[in-house]
Every structure is written in C-alpha cells, then in structure tokens.
C-alpha cells in the first residue's frame, strides 16, 4: 500500500479513540457493574441506573448544569453582540491588536481567574470599597461573593471571548452594502440590526453558543471555589462518588446522564439557531 496524505488521520484517530472514546465506553460498562467490599465486580446490574432514576438530587444537579450552561450562553450572547459589532468597525490595522487584547485573558489559568475574582468581589474587595466610598451602600454587599451571582458572573467572564470571537468572524462576512441598502431604504439602525445583521450572523451565534455551552455546563471549579453553599454541581458529586464513596457504577451513570443531557440540549440549541432564516441563507450560499 502506498502512503497517502489522508493516512495521517490514522494515528490521530487512534489517539482520540484511546484517550477519549475508550474512557467514555468504559464509563458505560462500569455503570452496569456492582461494588462489593470496595471492589468493582463485572456484572449486568441496573442498580446504579435505578438509583439515579429515583434520585431527585441527581436530576436537580443535572438540571442545574443545563441551566448554568444556558444562562452563560444567553449572557455572553447579549454582551458579545455589541462588542463583536463594534470590533467590525475597527480599522484593519487595529484588528490584530484587538484579537490579542481579546484573547489574552483566556491565557490566564483557571485558578488565576478564580483567585482574582475573589479579591475583586470580597467584603473588602474593589467593588464593595468603591460602592461604600461613593456612599451608594452602607455595608458591604454579601451576595457578590460565594453566591449564584458570582458563578454567573465568572462563567460569563470566562466564556465571553469565545462568543465575541465567533460572532465577530460571522459579522465580518456580512456584506456592508446590505446594511447601507437597508439604511438607504429607510430602516432605522435597530431595524437594520434585527432584519439584516442578526439573521446573517446566526451561524456565528450558533457556533459561539455551542462552544460556550460545552465549556460552561460541565464546569465544576468555578461553582465549587466561588459558589459557596450554592456551589454543588453534578460533576462535584461524580467526583465524590468516584473518590470518597467508591461507588463507581453510580458515578459512571451520573456522568453519562449528564453528558447525554448536555448533548441533547446543545443539539436542540444549535438546531433552533440554524433553522432561523438568515442561517439558511448564509449556509446555502457557501
């Protein structure tokens, strides 16, 4: 057999199969195993799935993961659109710089960002000191740190650059003459946005939403380190079942249920966005 360029896919595929697909398959197998005396015994038991099905906590936590992913997606989209549209107006020379400015916060470590927000939002942090100094509040705001608010804020912060980037790429491809034509024909800027720009940038919005959802829904560090009492996540529970409780079957079943739910929600979300009129126009043209 002669060598062809496409054969290079083989080692890569093997690596992904071994490092990614096989562990997930093993998760499926383990979810049917039994545990006896801290030993994992091959079996075909539905005990773990039964436990999972009847546990309200588990489904509540899975629902919470979906909610936090969707909320982060919506927040980043609302904030990302104005930023992405403003970026398209920059001079070409400034765009390279803008990319660096946008991406550098992503290079900081997960723990660095979490650490930094704790300093900003704490009782004697920047925000509270500022608000106290301005006389807007009489005592430090407690909800800023270790609350659902903190989780939402930091997840939005972590994922905003991805959303901006995706929408920006899409918005750069919109023919500016279409917007000018709409304006010439009497559309107000708001109409031009909703009837021309927004429909034509839905592919970018879909790509950004998928990315942000995938990155934020399964996140366990930000909630557990900054969420305080509201920081419980499905993944932290999986971690607990895996490490401390040594209930690998239930840990596997819960992780798989979470994965399947996230996958369904993500496909539904992408499907909905791509069914919009503009997306079909853009994709049909390409």
């Amino acid at each position, binding site marked *: 057999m002669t*060598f062809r*360029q*496409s054969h*290079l*896919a083989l*080692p*890569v*595929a093997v*690596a*992904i199969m071994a*490092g*990614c*697909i096989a*562990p997930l398959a*093993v998760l499926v197998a383990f979810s049917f195993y039994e545990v006896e005396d801290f030993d994992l015994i091959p079996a075909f038991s539905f005990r773990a799935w039964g436990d999972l099905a009847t546990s309200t906590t588990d489904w509540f936590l899975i629902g919470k993961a979906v909610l936090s992913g969707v909320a982060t997606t919506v927040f980043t989209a609302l*904030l990302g659109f*104005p930023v992405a*549209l*403003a970026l398209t*107006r*920059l001079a070409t020379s400034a765009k390279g710089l*803008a990319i660096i*400015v*946008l991406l*550098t*916060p992503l*290079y*900081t*470590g*997960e*723990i*660095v960002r*979490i*650490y*930094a927000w704790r*300093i*900003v939002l704490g009782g*004697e*942090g*920047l925000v509270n*000191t500022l608000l106290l100094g301005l006389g807007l509040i009489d005592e430090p705001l407690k909800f800023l740190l270790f609350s659902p608010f903190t989780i939402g804020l930091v997840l939005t*912060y972590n994922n*905003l650059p991805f959303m*901006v980037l995706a929408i920006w790429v899409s918005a750069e491809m919109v023919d500016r003459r279409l917007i000018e034509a709409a304006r010439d024909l009497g559309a107000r800027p708001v109409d031009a946005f909703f009837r021309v720009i927004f429909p034509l940038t839905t592919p970018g919005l879909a790509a950004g939403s998928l990315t942000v959802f*995938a990155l934020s829904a*399964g*996140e*366990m*560090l930000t909630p557990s*380190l900054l969420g305080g009492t509201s920081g419980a996540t499905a*993944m932290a529970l*999986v*971690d607990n079942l*895996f490490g401390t409780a040594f209930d*690998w079957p239930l840990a*596997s079943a819960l*992780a798989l249920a*979470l*994965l399947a739910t996230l996958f369904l929600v*993500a496909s539904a979300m992408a499907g909905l966005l791509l069914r919009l009129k503009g997306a079909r126009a853009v994709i049909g043209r390409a």
Partner: protein
Amino acid sequence: MGRIGLSVLIVAAGFLYLPLVVLAVFSFNDSALMAFPLSGFTLQWYRELAQNDNFLSGFVTSFLIAQPVGILAMLFGLMASLALTAPGFRWRGLFAILLLTPFLVPKSVLSIAQAMIMSRVGFERGATALILAQSLVALPFATALISAVMVRFDRRLIEAARDLGASPWQAFLRVLLPQIRPALSGAYSVGVILSLADLTIAMFLAGRTQPLSLMVASEFRRELRPDLNAMQVVVLALTALLVGLSEVYRRRRLRRLAAEA
C-alpha cells in the same frame, strides 16, 4: 468608528482586564491583607516567592509538563490538518467529528473517565498521564489553528513540486512547511498555554505530581496571600511573554514570505 462603538470596546476591555489588574496591584501592596485602601508599594511578596522552594519546584514541574504538551499538540494537530485537507479523503466528516469530541466532552467528565480506565489497567497517574490528557484537550485547538492556514494553501504548488521531481517528503519540507510554520508555532503555544492554565485535568490525573495550579488551588481553600498574587503575576507575565514572542515570530515570517513572493 462611532463614539458608542468605542465606549463598548473600552467597557469590554475593562471588564476582561479588571480582575487581572487588581491581582497585580495587590502583589505590590505593602500589606498582608488583600483589602482597600492600598498601603504602599513593596517588592516583599516577590522576594518571599523567590525563596519559597515549594513554589519554585511547582513552577519547574508545570513548565516541564507544558513543553511536551505543546509539541504533541503541534505534531498531532499537523497530522490531523494534513489528513483533513488531503484530496479525496473519504472519512473527512467522521474524522472532523472525532477531532471535536475532546473539545465537546466537558473536561471534568473526560478526566474522571480517564482516571477510572487508568486505575483499572494499572496505568499510574502522574506526569505522563497528565501530559497525554492535556495534549488531547489541546488537539482540537491546535488542529483548528493549523488547518485554518492550510485550507488557504494553493495545492497546485505541491503538485508543481511533485511534477518537478520532488518526493512527497521533500514537497512537504520545502513547499508546505515554510508556509505553515507560523501556524505550527501558534499550535505549540496554544498547547503550552492550555497546559499552564489547566487545573481540572490536573485534579484528576496528576497523581503525586504537583503542578503549580494544584498548589495554588489547595492554598486557595485556606487563605489568600499576597505572595500567591505575586506568583500569579509571574505566571501571567511569562505566558504573555510567550504569546508576544510567537506573535513577533509569526509577523516576521509573514513579512519574509511577503518579501519572497
């Protein structure tokens, strides 16, 4: 550009950099408490950091783990991109989906599944496991970077080289490689950066290895300390230096390519 657009960008940049600026400011603040008002300038925390052997060894560990991650991400990203852009590759769609899975599956789920399989087959968790897992997560990013450049490459140049008697290997080395070198260096830095930034994978797979992010995370649960701030600033500065260097390199390559053309 309108005034509204400019203010949007300024507010956005402020939001993105606010936590990092605050972090840096407190690393120079002359007080053990991280609270306003500021008490004065000091380099004490950086001095303490330089004398802390634990952190220094964590630093070296993180750095040594990040290098192979960058190289593996680059090599596998290159192979994946070559396959993706190969003419007449029948499994392209399927292969692309496969490449996306390490990105779409949450890191936490993936690492826990990997930890389970490793302990079953007796593969010890540690630096090797960490390097392999981090490379896998970096692979989709590296592939995206390299193939974005490769799809714009004119394949006829390769065909011309082949017609003139070059072997496939020579055609790759002399025609394609010079064009994609900036993208390769980008893929390498993405691997290094993702490895340095990671905490989730390390939590599950590091075993007895102690990269910096794990050390900080365990300190973090106890208290905030200014010397930790100083360390974060150092890590940040080093990462920025890396990004800066690879950007300078990329621009110089592009200029040279333009000059040759």
